[in-house]
């Protein structure tokens, strides 16, 4: 398999109906650095996309063997991306270097992520890039209160963009921003009207981009630590974010056993996990991140971003207790010495 960093990045543009996904894409695709981007859209909306590579999607979903709902493969999506890649290979379309997928408003992003990571053909050619979620300043808070999919779209995002801030009172936008920060402290929040929305910052900066991955990891670690526990939890099923810190280097094999077991049972409620790990016998810090049941192949940073050598893992969870996860990982970690002896 090619090095993960060399695979074609796929950006997801999610957001509820009317949030302005197509308008955002239209704006971004004018930028020269995104000129070689192919686009897949779920439906052609009122706002037209005048882009060189534009393909529609139909709905079809296939459940993976022994998988849950968030581990379904979107058959339509897999077929569409494979078709696009085949045309690229045969020279029927320009050799695009990035793919952007605009989802339907109601789409759960997890099956799309699972399709890219787990589909046997796609995983050798594509990798998941940043997930950009738009939230409408006028209707966002109501949608977050009423629609679980909207909360999930926010929780899995790498970038959050508040749209229509020119149409909403400033206090409504500020309240929405606080709500977004509570659900997902690790993603920067941008204002579609006031901020320039630089294509590179929005789409290209991620943990697999050599130029930006160190800054990206530092940013979400800092945000995750600062955001943890700043708001009281209102009820048991509420989405919350916290950061676990470990003084001792972690055993990677033991961590893999623990995280796969956690995600097997609780993957639907572990919306995001992002960690910078000090791994035993590995010189460089290892970056791990996942969306629900799906964990991306790990990558590493060339050097530690600061003097802190502790492992730090940011979780965004629904209805799970920080103390239980912390105690469980510590109990598994205790087994490592005996595992080393036995191996």
């Amino acid at each position, binding site marked *: *398999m090619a*090095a993960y960093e060399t695979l074609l990045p796929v950006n997801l543009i999610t957001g509820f109906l009317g949030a302005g996904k197509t308008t955002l894409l239209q704006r971004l695709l004018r930028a020269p650095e995104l000129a070689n981007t192919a686009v897949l859209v779920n439906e052609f909306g009122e706002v037209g996309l005048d882009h060189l590579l534009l393909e529609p999607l139909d709905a079809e979903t296939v459940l993976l063997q*022994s998988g849950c709902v968030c581990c379904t493969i979107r058959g339509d999506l897999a077929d569409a991306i494979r078709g696009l890649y085949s045309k690229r290979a045969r020279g029927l379309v320009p050799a695009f270097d990035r793919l952007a997928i605009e989802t339907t408003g109601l789409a759960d992003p997890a099956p799309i992520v699972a399709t890219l990571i787990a589909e*046997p053909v796609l995983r050798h050619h594509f990798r998941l890039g940043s997930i950009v979620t738009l939230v409408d300043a006028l209707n966002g808070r109501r949608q977050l209160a009423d629609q679980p999919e909207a909360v999930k779209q926010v929780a899995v995002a790498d970038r959050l963009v508040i749209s229509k801030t020119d149409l909403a009172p400033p206090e409504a936008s500020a309240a929405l921003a606080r709500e977004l920060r509570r659900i997902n402290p690790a993603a920067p929040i941008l204002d579609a009207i006031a901020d320039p929305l630089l294509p590179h910052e929005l789409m290209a900066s991620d943990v697999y981009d050599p130029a930006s991955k160190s800054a990206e990891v530092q940013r979400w670690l800092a945000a995750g630590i600062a955001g943890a526990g700043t708001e009281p939890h209102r009820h048991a099923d509420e989405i919350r974010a916290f950061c676990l810190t470990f003084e001792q280097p972690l*055993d*990677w*094999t*033991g*961590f*893999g*056993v*623990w*995280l*796969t*077991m*956690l995600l*097997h*049972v*609780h993957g639907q409620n572990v919306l995001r996990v992002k960690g910078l790990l000090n*791994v035993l*016998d*590995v*010189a*460089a810090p*290892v970056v*791990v991140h996942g969306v629900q049941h799906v*964990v*991306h*192949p*790990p*990558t*590493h940073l060339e050097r530690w971003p600061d003097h802190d050598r502790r492992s730090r893992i940011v979780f965004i969870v629904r209805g*799970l207790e920080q103390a*239980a*996860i912390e*105690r*469980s990982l510590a*109990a*598994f970690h*205790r*087994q*490592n010495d*005996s*595992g*080393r002896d*036995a*191996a």
Partner: protein
Amino acid sequence: MCGLCGVLGAEDHWSDAAARPEAFPPRAGAPGATRRQERQRRIALANRILQHYRLRLGDFEGRSYLLRGATGRQELVPHLAHLWAAAERVAGRPCDPLDEALIAALERR
């Protein structure tokens, strides 16, 4: 695929460190872990957890794992992603790492 027994080779799993030297550059002077060593270590660590459910994991042809239950029931497991679903089927009960009884048992060891 193994030509003798027809066992399909397992796909990479995200936790396979030996398969990703670019992500896990070994520390200077540290003994380099081979795939085989990593598998043996994974089996040993998983067995520390599985013994709580009276299960035992072993290597199968260096490509898969064989999970055995106390009643003799067994399942072939291609890689770690499939282990816990198989463990629940063979043990006949959930395998939850947040389960208080499991954590307490691990803390006592």
